[in-house]
């Protein structure tokens, strides 16, 4: 991989488009977009943004599935000096609107068919997706775009909205430099080149998606988009992996585990596959061992870090890993500095990949950072211990955040969503582990009057207000919610009830 001069993510694309214009940048089903086409489309769209009055650091919301058009929109936003805000189109309308409002988006790009709609969030006016003139943006036009975007590497490039414990998603602001540090390291460590075909099924709102999108721009690799409808369908995913001759894969462990259990991953060979990275949640030891055994030629690695820091530690799976012990989260990446709070065992992470802060939440930002020896660290909330080889082991959380299928969930956000229903007086939500199904979420709900709310109505309320992965598996109507002596909800007691449920007991207490 040749070293890139610029620290700006869109400059990587410009450079690669000049070096290998005809090479495939994005493959989406039958549609192949070359680097030249990708850059031209992005530059032309960026020009229209600028003509529309988009200013440096304005927010452009991409309410889009992970498609070629969405990636064009990412680079168009960056070329125009704006910040892109990916929002999953399957979120409930209420949540999408709340995020658009929170980040004060100037434009929202939306729609699941071609062409996407570009809406001015203030005036409601629409900008056409395609340029009025058919001629591609000329090099002079490129230059004018580029001259507009003399961004600093510390400027925000994107905002990723993640679950917030008080009931509102919070926006993690990441700079060009933060994303760049991670992507450059992966390019070097995993020797990513123009021969690679990278697949990452995570939506764009996930930090995992910085890996494929920006390694494409940096290294000239091809970003092969996983069809959205097969992401959770293991047998089609396995077929995709083979037919698309993927060389680098990056996903949450849940998706890999599904490919083994239902997709019969181990029955096939993957001669092209050379790198498998996973992050976002704990991958149980036996699953890791099965993976490495099934693809002995591939480098498999566990990448660790909350969205606020992207990846800060990593651990390469040993070739003889037997899975009897959990896989560590490993050693720090070269751009990261990590340390442990001696008292609480909390991992503190700093370095180049650190977020700028939370969008519009100075107090939360201040609370989440700590200064040690003149360096800024993020409090990860993850408890760790040190293994004999001085690598870090993940022990657990210090708060009520849980991971489910790799999605990060604040249980408090579910409680707040339930409590917004007029018939619900009080709600307490807990998570429990179920060997077969993974993380199970149970909600205990006290309603205004017996029969005021049916289970179907309660579930429909959750579907209207929460993303699908946050919806509780069990909703239990209770007369009282167990409290401790100080009137605080006794989550341990609720957890015991939920454990009973998972053993197949009655689904009502």
């Amino acid at each position: 991989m040749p070293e890139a001069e610029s620290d700006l993510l869109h400059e990587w694309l410009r450079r690669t488009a000049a070096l290998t214009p005809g090479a495939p940048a994005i493959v989406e089903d039958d549609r192949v977009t070359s680097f030249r086409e990708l850059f031209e489309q992005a530059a032309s769209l960026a020009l229209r943004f600028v003509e529309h009055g988009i200013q440096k650091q304005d927010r452009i919301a991409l309410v889009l599935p992970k498609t070629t058009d969405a990636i064009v929109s990412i680079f168009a936003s960056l070329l125009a000096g704006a910040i892109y805000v990916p929002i999953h189109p399957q979120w409930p309308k209420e949540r999408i609107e709340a995020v658009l409002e929170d980040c004060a988006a100037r434009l929202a790009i939306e729609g699941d068919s071609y062409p996407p709609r570009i809406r001015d969030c203030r005036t409601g006016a629409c900008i056409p997706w395609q340029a009025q003139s058919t001629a591609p943006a000329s090099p002079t036009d490129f230059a004018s775009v580029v001259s507009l975007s003399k961004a600093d590497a510390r400027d925000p490039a994107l905002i990723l909205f993640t679950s917030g414990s008080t009931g509102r998603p919070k926006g993690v602001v990441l700079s060009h430099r933060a994303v760049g540090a991670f992507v450059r390291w992966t390019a070097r460590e995993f020797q990513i080149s123009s021969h690679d075909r990278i697949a990452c099924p995570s939506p764009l709102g996930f930090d995992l998606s910085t890996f494929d999108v920006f390694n494409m721009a940096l290294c000239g690799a091809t970003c092969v988009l996983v069809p959205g409808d097969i992401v959770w369908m293991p047998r089609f995913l396995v077929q995709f992996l083979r037919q698309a001759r993927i060389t680098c894969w990056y996903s949450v462990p849940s998706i890999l585990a599904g490919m083994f259990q239902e997709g019969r991953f181990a029955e096939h060979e993957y001669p092209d596959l050379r790198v498998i990275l996973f992050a976002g949640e704990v991958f149980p030891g036996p699953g890791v061992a099965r993976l490495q055994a099934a693809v002995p030629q591939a480098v498999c690695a566990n990448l660790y870090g909350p969205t606020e820091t992207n990846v800060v530690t990593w651990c390469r799976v040993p070739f003889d890993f037997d899975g009897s012990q959990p896989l560590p989260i490993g050693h720090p990446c070269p751009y990261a500095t990590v340390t442990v709070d001696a008292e609480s065992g909390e991992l503190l992470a700093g370095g180049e990949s650190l977020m700028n802060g939370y969008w519009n939440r100075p107090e939360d930002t201040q609370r989440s950072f700590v200064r040690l020896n003149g360096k800024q660290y993020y409090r990860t909330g993850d408890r760790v211990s040190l293994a004999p080889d001085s690598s870090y082991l993940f022990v657990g959380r210090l708060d009520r955040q849980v991971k489910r299928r790799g999605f990060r969930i604040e249980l408090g956000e579910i409680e707040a969503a339930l409590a917004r229903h007029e018939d619900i007086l009080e709600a307490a939500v807990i998570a429990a582990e179920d060997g077969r199904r993974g993380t199970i979420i149970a909600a205990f709900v006290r309603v205004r009057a017996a029969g005021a709310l049916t289970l179907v109505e309660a579930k429909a309320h959750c579907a209207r207000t929460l993303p699908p992965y946050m919806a509780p598996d069990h909703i239990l109507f209770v007369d009282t919610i167990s409290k401790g002596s100080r009137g605080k909800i006794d989550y341990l007691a609720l957890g015991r009830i939920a454990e009973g449920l998972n053993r197949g007991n009655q689904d009502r207490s």
Partner: protein
Amino acid sequence: MEIKTEVRNYIAENFLPNAPAASIDDAMPLITGGVIDSIGMITLVSFLESRFEVEFMPREIDVHCLDTVERIEQLIVKKLAGREPGVAEGKIQ
């Protein structure tokens, strides 16, 4: 047993514990109504595939095809009708 009854029983048992299967009417929105989430949809499809010995195409695993008991039945009936001996069905190209 009728297809609809089997589907209703499965949904009641797995997604609406303690609700009688009969309370799920043919047109009740299951996925858009929040009864079944996206992973639930995949497990529903696994159930339908093994119970009725059919295979789904990725495109059919869709909110519109599976949102009500009625539509699920229509899809299964269509699949069963299209199944001929010796023809491998539902393989993606």
